[in-house]
């Protein structure tokens, strides 16, 4: 195998094969995926994100939350995500079509957040967790997201409010054509 041009041509072919076979074929299947109703004539899902949540997504990325939190619920036969209460159904590709940058994540030092908005009780609870996480948690407090109020309590500032709005917007508790909620 002394012909180096042949080696380069061969390597190019191997890269082209995986690029075409995985990415182009995947694009052909999912590239035009958009919002859709669970039943014909129903409302379109996923819902459009509120503006504040879009700003909060930037805060989420800036803080590097994706290093510890995933946003994907695996099917029941593939891990215990649903048994952990992180979602009511597995995540599907359609859930992410509105996200300009998908933050699926690949490590869980903290719990999954794909459906966090559905299980968070209130803004105050989320704010309390961000300002003073539970003892023993590996999560740090985020003091820069809060201002001190006149009464000494911590109040979310603009970025903190946006992040809370984003976390509340994380919901996968609706039926989609690919994943129906169990009755």
């Amino acid at each position, binding site marked *: 195998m002394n012909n180096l041009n042949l*080696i380069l041509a061969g*390597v190019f072919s191997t*890269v082209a094969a995986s690029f075409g076979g995985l990415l182009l074929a995947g694009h052909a299947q999912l590239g035009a995926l958009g919002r859709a109703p669970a039943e014909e004539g129903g409302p379109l899902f996923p819902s459009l994100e509120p503006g504040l949540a879009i700003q909060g997504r930037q805060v989420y990325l800036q803080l590097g939350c994706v290093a510890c939190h995933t946003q994907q619920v*695996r099917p029941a036969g*593939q891990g215990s995500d649903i048994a*952990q209460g992180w979602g009511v159904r597995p995540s599907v590709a359609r859930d992410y079509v509105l996200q300009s940058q*998908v933050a699926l994540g690949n490590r*869980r030092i903290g719990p999954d957040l794909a459906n966090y908005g559905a299980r968070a009780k209130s803004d105050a609870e989320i704010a309390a967790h961000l300002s003073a996480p539970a003892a023993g948690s590996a999560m740090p407090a*985020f003091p820069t997201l809060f201002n001190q109020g006149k009464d000494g309590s911590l109040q979310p500032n603009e970025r903190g409010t946006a992040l809370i709005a984003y976390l509340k917007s994380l919901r996968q508790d609706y039926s989609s054509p690919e994943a129906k909620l169990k009755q």
Partner: protein
Amino acid sequence: MSQENQPSRPSGQGRPQGRPADTGSPRISRVDASVASPVKFFFASALLWLLVSSVLAVITAVKLHLPGFLNSCEHLTFGRLDAIQRNVFFYGWASNALIGLNLWLLASLGRFEFRNGWIATLGGLIWNLALTVGIACVLIDSHNAFELLELPRGVALAFFVAFLLAALWPAVAFVRRPTGQVFVSQWYILGASFVLPVVYLLTQLMVLWCPTNGVLQALVHSWFLQNFLLLWLGASALAAVYYFLPKELGTTLTGYYLSTVGFWTLFLFAGWTGPATLLGSPVPLWIQSSGVVAAVMLLIPLTITSINFFGTLSRDSGWTRAWNNTTLRFVAFGLVAYTLAIALQIVFSARSLNAIVRFTSFAAGQQQLLTYAFVSMVIFGAAYYILPRLTGAFWPSAKLVHLHFWSCALAVVVSVAGSLFFGWTQGAALAAAKPFAQTMQPQEALLSSACAVLFLIGHVAFALNAFGMLTTCSSSTEEARQA
């Protein structure tokens, strides 16, 4: 020869690499002199980045069990520092060192005197400048969500230009050399030097410049990551192993004729293994299954490299001789790690096993096994061989060589074993429906911190030795070039 240049002789470790068999000062060949400047530049840069990465690794490890550590400033959150540490390690340390190593191997194997070596040095300057700017941007503002794509988009363009100058240009120049036999190391270097810029550019386009729809971004990223790990880092390190093992043992490789098949099957299947890291994710099942099949097919190149390397080491007291040779001690360590890493990748691409360990520290342990225990250890071994030949000086301290090997070897063994063990136990506890908060194991973070400190000690020892050599090297490089 002055006293400072007297070669050190580590007990029970044979003579330090770079020293000729008999006494006498090390000589620099014309071929080595032609690439000395860029290769030394790349290794020196890599070393500086390795030190930065080691310090950052200590900070991030401490943050995992002391979340309040350095927490008053938003720039120093765990997520940002973790991303910076990763980029510094992969683009600063590993890539710099491998570009330099590949350059030297191409020149050395082809007996090929590079002209215009300044072009490669210019590429190195652009590469390191771009990385510095990129790290500053991540530190100051934001980064995106994908591992090893955190640097701003503009930096990627600079990386691309730099890589063309520093790595692809020498490869093309090599292709255009008059005649000569081609060795298996050269195939791997050419393949790796071609894959990285192409894959990196396509990924940047599809994830950052013109983002594809939804989860396709994650698919593209997984494709990039596996290509980067296996076909850039892995293939470059394999090229070095194919060179140093027979060279230092003074023998031929067992089953050398099989290496062609090993090369092509690695390049054919590695690019398809990305989706095997997305099992259970919201990507189509057929894509996930393709990844699993490709991962299993890695058994072919793994078997062939095992025959090549372990067959060779098993002959004529090869293991003992490798242990007594500084370069081969690191290389053999790396080979065992490579075999384990690929074997684990194959086994844990099975859906049932992957379901247990996915998202735990198990995957981090697997990655460290490949990128540190294999790639970095091979780079260390190569540096012990190459730098004396480029500087005309000996390694200043044998004790530091020992300290480097033992601290890094111990750290990586404990760190990887800890990640695999704690990852598996956490996954098993989660599978048994134990609440997530109760599956976290604080001992794991403590162990990571201890290992990070041990890594730092080893890297400081290596850097002291290497910079001692680089700064005291005589003008012999210049003399050789003039000769």
